[in-house]
């Protein structure tokens, strides 16, 4: 298993930020997702964030909602996500799964962690789980050597940032804006301050997500964060494409652009 820390260490050794790319499993189809992940890796992504499609996606904007709804309509199950995660993990970069907590609870936390580790994944990003309520996961993830990535936001108090980063393992996800996922014209002006506040509490790398869609924005975020997380813009490539092959090609082209962006 590759740890997600490996992706950040590699980027740090090259004196740059890591490029973290998100795609949801099962979209545009099971096979189409695997092809898009391959294009992401070929384009230069450092860490894959594979989304588990969920019916109540509270942190996601319209783009990712449209994609995950399609994945669910097509019958994507947790077992399919595990299968896609295993395929992604074999592509040569670390993989973390991003999931809302209820599917993990329904599947069983221990069972989920066991399957995730067996698939070769590094851990979980859990946007709607607060460390205060993550009791089982704190212990079980440690038992399986899995990373725990919790989120902090601009509204987080210093005490909340400290308790959240103390519970994180691997890295910290900083949500740069108070809102849902989705490409934005301007990147957040409060994100640099949030990253600074996170670093006062932890040595862990900090990834910044929400809103980055192009090379210039990637370069800007890379100037102050350890990782640049891009989701909706990649998903948009697949949503807007006339067919899967052209969508996959567009994902590869954007990934190469963003990989260049984090290199300044």
């Amino acid at each position, binding site marked *: 298993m590759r740890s997600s820390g490996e992706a950040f260490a590699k980027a740090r050794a090259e004196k740059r930020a890591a490029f973290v790319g998100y795609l949801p499993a099962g979209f545009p189809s099971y096979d189409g997702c695997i092809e898009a992940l391959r294009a992401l890796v070929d384009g230069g992504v450092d860490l894959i964030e594979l989304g588990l499609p*969920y*019916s*109540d996606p509270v942190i996601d904007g319209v783009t990712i909602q449209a994609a995950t709804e399609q994945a*669910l309509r097509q019958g994507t*199950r947790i077992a399919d996500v595990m299968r896609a995660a295993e395929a992604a993990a074999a592509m040569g970069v670390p993989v973390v799964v991003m999931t809302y907590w*209820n*599917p*993990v609870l*329904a*599947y069983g936390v221990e069972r989920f962690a066991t399957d995730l580790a067996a698939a070769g994944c590094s851990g979980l990003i859990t946007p709607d789980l607060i460390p205060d309520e993550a009791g089982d996961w704190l212990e079980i993830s440690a038992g399986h050597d899995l990373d725990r990535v919790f989120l902090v936001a601009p509204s987080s108090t210093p005490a909340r940032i400290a308790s959240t980063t103390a519970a994180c393992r691997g890295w910290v996800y900083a949500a740069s804006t108070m809102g849902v996922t989705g490409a934005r014209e301007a990147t957040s002006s409060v994100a640099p301050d949030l990253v600074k506040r996170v670093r006062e509490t932890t040595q862990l790398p900090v990834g910044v997500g929400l809103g980055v869609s192009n090379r210039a924005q990637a370069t800007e975020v890379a100037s102050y964060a350890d990782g640049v997380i891009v989701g909706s813009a990649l998903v948009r490539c697949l949503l807007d494409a006339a067919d899967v092959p052209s969508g996959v090609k567009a994902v590869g082209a954007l990934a190469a652009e963003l990989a260049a962006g984090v290199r300044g």
Partner: protein
Amino acid sequence: MQDEDGQTRESHSISAGLDYPGVGPEHAWLKDTGRATYEPVDDDDAMEAFRLLCRTEGIIPAIESAHALAGVHSVVRKLGADAVLLVNLSGRGDKDMTTAAEWFGLV
């Protein structure tokens, strides 16, 4: 209300405020600790209770609250006619007039 993957199932209630598939942690706790009991009430019973309160008291209950009024029947059956019952009428039904008018075939 969820499937085995934890995916949300679609719900239905005539009351917008009850038409969701989840239960809050407070209610779950009250039920698990036995401090409260919960009875199902369907659209028909809730709207009959809605009509009854309008006609007898001149008070328009929220359709959410009308579910509690409908529950009075089964409580009375258990406790007997002499029991004193306190019903929490948690909201007003002016907001529900369109829904009620459609239900009773008035529009």
